[in-house]
C-alpha cells in the first residue's frame, strides 16, 4: 500500500547544557568549558504510515511523542535518519501557534492559512467555513489578543482542518477546549478518516486512541517498543506507564508475550490464564439490571502476599464505563503458587445492550511493583429490552407534582 509518511530510523539527540554560554564574555572566559550531557529523545524510531490510516502515538510523559511529531512536521530535524512525507501536511502542534495577537481574527486566518501552505485564493474559498466552524462570526474582526483561550483554540483548529491537508498531525490538542467543541473536533476527525486521509495523533488517553486509531505506536524513553494493533498497543502502554523508572526494564511482561523492542525480556512470574464475563453460572449474555460475574484465573509461579486486581469496562464505542481496583473496593487479594481464582460480581448491571470489552490488570503495590495488563480479556454481552437510549438505564421514575 502507498505510504503517506515514512519514518526511517529516526534518532534525535538533545544536548542539555548545564548553563547556556551565549554571551561573548562567558565564551571568552570559559572557552573549553562546554558542560552538557546528551539525551536521546528518539532512538531508532522506524515505522510507515499507509495512506488513509490513523495512527495513534502513545507514551508516557517525556517518552518523545512531541519530539516525534515535531520531526514529522519538520519543526525539528532528526540527528540521524529521515522522515519522508507525501502530500500536504498540516500540523497542530499547538493551536493558534502562528497567531499574531495584534491582528484581527480575519487577518490571522489568512496568515495562519498561508503558514500551513495555502494560497490566498484557496483561503478565500474556505474562509466562511472556517468562521462558521469556529463560531466566531461576531468576533472575526476583533484583534486576537482580546480572544479568550477557548476562542483562540477554536479558530486555530478551524483553520487547520480547513486547509484541506492530506495528512493531519495532532498533538494532544483535543485535550483542551470545552467538551462540546472537543466533540465537534472529534466528529471532524472522523469525517477526515471517512475521506480517506491520513492522521497521526498523539494522546495520553487510551480511550481516545481506542476509538479513533487503526494503528498504534508506543514510545518508551524514546524507543519504539510497539507498532501494531491498538488493543495490544494499549496493553503495552499501560504496562510501561505503571513500570517504575528504576526497576529492571522489561520485568513486567505479560502472558508470555515477547515485547518488541530492545529490552531484556524476563519471563513473567504471573499471568492471566482465563478471564470470563457474563451471567453467573452460565457465563452467557446478561440482561440489563441482571446479575453479572467476572471470573479471573491467574497463574503464579511465586507466592505474592498482596496483589491489586483492576477491572475495566469499555463500551462498544470505546468509552470507559467503569474502572475499579480491588483495594478501592476494600478487598485484599494475595496469590499463591499455582492457579488462583478471583470473582467480581455485580447484582444489577445498569448498562444497555452491546458487546462490552473487559480489560483486567494485576499489580503489586509500591514503587517498582510489577504490572500485568490484559487488554480485551473478555467480552461482556448485554441484552436490553427497554426503550432507553444512551449507555445506562437509570430506571428513572416520574410523577406530576
Amino acid at each position: 500500500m502507498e505510504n503517506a509518511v515514512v519514518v526511517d530510523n529516526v534518532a534525535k539527540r538533545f544536548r542539555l547544557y548545564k548553563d547556556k554560554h551565549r554571551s561573548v564574555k562567558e565564551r571568552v572566559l570559559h572557552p573549553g568549558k562546554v558542560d552538557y550531557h546528551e539525551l536521546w529523545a528518539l532512538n531508532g524510531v522506524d515505522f510507515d504510515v499507509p495512506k488513509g490510516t490513523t495512527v495513534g502515538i502513545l507514551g508516557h510523559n517525556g517518552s518523545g511523542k512531541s519530539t516525534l511529531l515535531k520531526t514529522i512536521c519538520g519543526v525539528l530535524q532528526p540527528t540521524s535518519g529521515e522522515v519522508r512525507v507525501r502530500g500536504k501536511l498540516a500540523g497542530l502542534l499547538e493551536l493558534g501557534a502562528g497567531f499574531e495577537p495584534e491582528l484581527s481574527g480575519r487577518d490571522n486566518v489568512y496568515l495562519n492559512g498561508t503558514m500551513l501552505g495555502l494560497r490566498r485564493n484557496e483561503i478565500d474559498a474556505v474562509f466562511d467555513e472556517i468562521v462558521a466552524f469556529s463560531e466566531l462570526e461576531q468576533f472575526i474582526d476583533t484583534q486576537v489578543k482580546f480572544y479568550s483561550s477557548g476562542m483562540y483554540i477554536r479558530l486555530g483548529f478551524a483553520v487547520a482542518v480547513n486547509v484541506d491537508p492530506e495528512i493531519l498531525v495532532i498533538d494532544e490538542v483535543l485535550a483542551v477546549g470545552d467538551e462540546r467543541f472537543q466533540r465537534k473536533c472529534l466528529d471532524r476527525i472522523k469525517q477526515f478518516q471517512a475521506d480517506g486521509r491520513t492522521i497521526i495523533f498523539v494522546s495520553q488517553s487510551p480511550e481516545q486512541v481506542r476509538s479513533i486509531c487503526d494503528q498504534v505506536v508506543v514510545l518508551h524513553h524514546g524507543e519504539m517498543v510497539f507498532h501494531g494493533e491498538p488493543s495490544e498497543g494499549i496493553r503495552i502502554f499501560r504496562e510501561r506507564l505503571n513500570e517504575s523508572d528504576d526497576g529492571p526494564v522489561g520485568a513486567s511482561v505479560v502472558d508470555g508475550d515477547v515485547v518488541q523492542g530492545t529490552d531484556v525480556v524476563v519471563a513473567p512470574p504471573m499471568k492471566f490464564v482465563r478471564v470470563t464475563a457474563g451471567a453467573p453460572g452460565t457465563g452467557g449474555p446478561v440482561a440489563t439490571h441482571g446479575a453479572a460475574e467476572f471470573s479471573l484465573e491467574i497463574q503464579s509461579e511465586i507466592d505474592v502476599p498482596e496483589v491489586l486486581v483492576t477491572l475495566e469496562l469499555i463500551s462498544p464505542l470505546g468509552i470507559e464505563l467503569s474502572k475499579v481496583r480491588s483495594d478501592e473496593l476494600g478487598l485484599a487479594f494475595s496469590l499463591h503458587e499455582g492457579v488462583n481464582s478471583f470473582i467480581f460480581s455485580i447484582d444489577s448491571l445498569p448498562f444497555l445492550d452491546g458487546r462490552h470489552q473487559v480489560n483486567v490488570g494485576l499489580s503489586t503495590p509500591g514503587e517498582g511493583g510489577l504490572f500485568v495488563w490484559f487488554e480485551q480479556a473478555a467480552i461482556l454481552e448485554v441484552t436490553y429490552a427497554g426503550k432507553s437510549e444512551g449507555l445506562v438505564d437509570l430506571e428513572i421514575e416520574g410523577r406530576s407534582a
Partner: protein
Amino acid sequence: MAETPPIEAGRSQKASRSLTGDTSGVRVVASSVTLRQRFQDLMRYRELLGALVRSEIKVKYKNSALGIAWTMVAPAVQLAIFGVVFGIFLSNGIPDYLIYIASGLLVWTFFSTSLIGGTGVIVGRAGIVKKVSFPREILSIATVGSQAFYLMLQWSVLALFMLLMRHAPDWSALPLVLVGFATTLLYAVALAVLLSAVNVYFRDTQHLIEIFVQIWFWMTPIVYTYQHNIHDRAVGKWFDFVNWLYLCNPMTPVILAFERAIYGRVTVTNTLTHQPFDVLPRWPLLTFYELLLGTFLVGLLLLAFAVRVFSRLEGNFAEEL
C-alpha cells in the same frame, strides 16, 4: 536520564521503502537537505512571504495615531539634521545637498534597518519557529520585505520633494536605481538570513551588528562624497589599492549608483567658492553598471552561503530558543 547510544544496527530492512515510484511532492525531513531543495521550499512558500510582510506592516501601525506616516518621520529628521549640519554649519558647498544625501541615505536606512531587524527576527518570533513548520528564512526575508515597502513610500515623498525643488534626476541613468536596488535587496536578504541564524546561537550578534552598521555607514560615501574623500586623498601607488579596497564595500557602488541617478549631477558649482567641482566620479555609465554587476554576482554567492549556513543551523532552532 540514562545516556542511551543510538541503535546503530537499526538501518531498517525496509531501507529502500519509498512513498511511491516518483518522488515529486515528497518532503524530506533530514539533518541536511540540498541547496536546491531549500530554494524549492522557499518558492513554495512565497505567498507566506507576502502575508508576513502585510501583517508586519499592519501590526506596526495598528495602534499608532499617525499610522504609516511614522515611516517618514525618522528619515525626515535624520535628513534634516544632516542637511543643517553639512549644508549650513559645516557647509561642503554641494548644491541641493538635501537631495544629494537623500539619494544615498534612504536606501542605506533600508539596508541597515533590514540587517538590524532581520538579525533579531528568529529569536523574536520563537513562538512560531518552535511550533509551525515552514522555511524559517521567510521570517528574515519578510523583515527585509516590509522595510522595502517603507523605502518605496519614502522614495515617493523624495520624488515629490524633488519636483518642488525643480531638481530633475539624470533620466538616462535612472535604470541604475533598479539595478542598485536589486543589489541592495540581495545583500539585505543574504545578510538578514545569515545573521538571524547566527543570532540564535550567539545572541551578542544583535548588539554587534548595531555597532557594525554605524561604522559601515561612515565607510560608505553617503554624507560625504566619494570624489572628495577617497579620490582626492588616495595618492600615488596607494591610490589603486585604497580605491579598490573602498570599492570592496558592496554598499559603495550601490550608493554611488543611486547618487549618480537620483542626484544626477557629476560636476557642480560650489555654493561657497562658485568654482566647478566633481561630486561623483566621471566614469561612463557603463562603469557603474559593471561595478554593480560584479557586486551583484558576489551577492549571489553570499546568498547561497547564507542559505547553506541557515539550513545547517536551523535544525537546532527549536531546541535553542
